[in-house]
């Protein structure tokens, strides 16, 4: 049997593909950023040179190069210089076109899957010879940072092809836990700084997952983590041997962390919380079905915001349920504590329709209505997950990069600025 098979991609193994996996964990002072350098093109340059040399042989040639691809001019310059060097190493001497035995037109093109470099070789009055070389596209990772008097800081954590539902970060020893639809993967950082897959646990589930699948990962003190998915609860065991136990479960999902505990039931066949709360907020044990919730500490009580499935935002304090006047919020909210402003902000996505890049913006609630306190931080695609981390001071956001189709996880924090 041959080795042609479909396998789930391993993030740390592919750093030169159209949809390149970019590993970076800034919080642990590591960033394996893509580094598009001259050596990236060496193999393709060699192959193209060999194919052209097989047609022309050594001798005087002229070379012109045209870029019809999405390659940046800096890359084109590098490729041009390196191709010339390769040609000369292969015995081809660069001369002006009117002195050349062969005229070589190299076109840097691309198709739906790869860069395509095409050499058109004209010798005397013969029909031109055509040679081609394919090389996978490189997708440079571009992460923008906002700096403002009060800003949402976006720290890249992880990027991969498979959908990411949530990410857990353990500082010591350095580990990252990635919750995917069908598995939970643990990565450990080696001494070299590289990340390697440590363990992989399949998630067993009887029912098909709903579309727009959601999941939430919670790091625990008595065992490593719990993973909440629609109708399924997975718990990592404690003890020397780590394994994962997944059961069908309608247990409510914890919201709000340790400071503002609240549990809510999640629909096993949809993408929202049913609205039933446990144990409830004061006298209120149910709210309209909602996608996400965020608590705001108010001294003696907690005001909860619910991004409801009907598109409205409800502010619930245990006594009253008021519709919030908001400005085009999306359906994902998360609260973060900070040392600036009122000490706590709500992060809210924008209201793109899922096919355009989204934004995340910080708001404060001096009273019942929100006030935007940061610029909108641009994401590279729609936000598919936004959860407050256990510490309460940061949140995890996952966006689907519309250009690379990669799922990119970020840690979001509030920067008070200077």
């Amino acid at each position: 049997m041959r080795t042609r098979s479909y396998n789930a991609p391993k993030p740390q193994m592919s750093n030169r593909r159209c949809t390149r996996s970019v590993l970076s964990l800034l919080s642990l002072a590591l960033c394996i950023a893509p580094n598009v350098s001259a050596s990236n093109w060496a193999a393709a340059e060699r192959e193209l040179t060999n194919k052209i040399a097989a047609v022309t042989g050594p001798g005087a040639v002229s070379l012109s190069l045209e870029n019809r691809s999405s390659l940046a001019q800096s890359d084109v310059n590098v490729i041009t210089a390196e191709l010339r060097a390769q040609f000369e190493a292969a015995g081809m001497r660069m001369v002006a076109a009117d002195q050349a035995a062969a005229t070589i037109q190299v076109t840097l093109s691309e198709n739906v899957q790869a860069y395509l470099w095409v050499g058109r070789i004209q010798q005397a009055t013969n029909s031109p010879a055509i040679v081609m070389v394919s090389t996978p596209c490189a997708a440079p990772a571009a992460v923008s940072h906002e700096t403002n008097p009060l800003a949402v800081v976006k720290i890249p954590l992880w990027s991969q092809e498979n959908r990411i539902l949530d990410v857990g970060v353990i500082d010591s020893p350095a580990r990252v836990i990635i919750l995917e639809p069908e598995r939970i993967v643990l990565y450990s950082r080696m001494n070299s700084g590289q990340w390697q897959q440590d363990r992989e646990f399949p998630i067993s589930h009887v029912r098909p997952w709903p579309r727009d699948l959601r999941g939430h990962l919670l790091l625990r003190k008595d065992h490593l983590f719990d993973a909440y998915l629609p109708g399924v609860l997975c718990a990592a065991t404690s003890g020397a041997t780590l394994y994962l136990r997944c059961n069908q479960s309608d247990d409510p999902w914890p919201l709000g962390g340790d400071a503002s505990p609240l549990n809510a039931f999640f629909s096993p066949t949809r993408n929202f919380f049913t609205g039933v709360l446990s144990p409830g907020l004061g006298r209120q044990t149910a709210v309209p079905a909602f996608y996400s919730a965020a608590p705001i500490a108010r001294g003696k009580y907690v005001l909860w915001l619910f991004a409801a499935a009907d598109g409205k935002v409800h502010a619930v304090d245990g006594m009253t349920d008021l519709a919030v006047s908001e400005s085009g919020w999306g359906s994902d909210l998360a609260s973060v504590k900070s040392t600036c402003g009122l000490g706590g902000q709500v992060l809210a996505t924008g209201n793109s329709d899922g096919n355009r890049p989204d934004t995340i913006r910080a708001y404060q609630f001096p009273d019942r209505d929100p006030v935007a306190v940061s610029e909108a931080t641009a994401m590279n695609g729609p936000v598919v997950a936004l959860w407050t981390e256990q510490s309460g001071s940061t949140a995890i956001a996952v966006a689907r990069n519309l250009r690379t189709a990669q799922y990119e996880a970020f840690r979001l924090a509030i920067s008070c600025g200077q």
Partner: protein
Amino acid sequence: MKRFGWQLVAVSSLLVALAHGATRPQYGGTAHVWLRSAPNSLDPASPQPDAFSAGNIFRLIYDTLVIADDTGRLQPGLAIAWQAAYDRRHWYFQLRPGVKFGDGSPVTADAVAASLRQANTWSVVPQGDSVAIGLEQPDDFLLAELALPRNAIVKRDAAGPRGTGPFRVAEWVAGKRLSLNANEEYWGGRPFLNSVEIEFGKSYHDQEVALELGRVEVVEVAPEQARRMEGAGRRVAESQPLELLALVFARDSKTANESTLRGALQLCIDRESIRNVLLGGEGEAAGGILPNWISGYEFLFPVETNVTKAQEDRGGVNQAPVWTLGYNPADPVGQVIAERIALNARDVGLRVQLAAGTNADVQLVRVRLESLDAGIALETAVARLGSPAPKLDGTSAQKVYEAENSVLQGQRIIPLFHLPVVYGLGPAVKGWDVRRDGTWRLVDIWMNAPRNSSD
């Protein structure tokens, strides 16, 4: 905004208050879709006059073993893993467990084998939870072929074809109407929509009026009308250029003179003028059968008009025959393009007479490319254009180029334009993924309307 500070940010946010938004998909609702052509039948293995449109319908009802994503890469469908033997003639596909047909029966290796045998001449053998496909010749294109709708996995019995796809057939009135309900047990997750209502046989004009009146959510739009509709504030989604408009001769060139005249015809056509005036600036002039975004090499095939060379070539042949140029009378834009080509031909001394219908020396033809795999797209397009199948010696771009170049050297096909597939969308449609290959993803759309959360 940065330099104004966050106070202005705060003020502006309050000014835009009360606009509700939601990014998460909402369950429920019905999408109404109007189309021009209907599939012959709901069996994907049956020949279809418009394989592209039929394929979009079949993808709602059926699944394939593998699925091509938006970059043409193959992803698991009803098969979760696959392997090829060294000889490239034998392939093994492990099936996704727990999947059921619309009648509740499980998708077994026997059922998959029976389905694939219906649509192909391959040897397909069930092996436990896998199927083995045996081919007469090594075929690196097999995976891309398996992703085509005609290779969808179907259970055929007296009650009609049944699939495993995201929707199930509620009602099918051949040639008129198709009603689909969400498959609650779909392995990829229940669609957000509760149902889809598709009506066939609707002209572009009727579709546009229905969209305007809010009676439908998704319609087809003639490419040349796309910019006008956008200018009128309508939502328009278009694919990359993937419909080939070409002239196709009924037979190969038999003499050197005939080849010269065909070359003159190719050189005299003013594609840029036709595109700008008759196609509303949409699409791209085509030198190749495959557009550059799929092949990467289309630029090697010239599209420039060269009237002088065409006149010289025409002048070198003593007696030029009168060619009849056929066009589809139901395609008004096709007719005016044919008229313009006849004028271009006359300007260089070629004699071309228009003829409505298909019985002509050379025909104006539209073909939509069915795959993002260049080799498969070339093979299927050339077959639909009625030319002999190209000889593909491998999957590399170089091999596909050599095959396409060989076809074009035969001078039976003169590519003219690559046009996008365009859809008009109602304001309630959310999540419409503008795919490059023009395929629908109705499974992922949802309706922006108040709904019952228990839907």
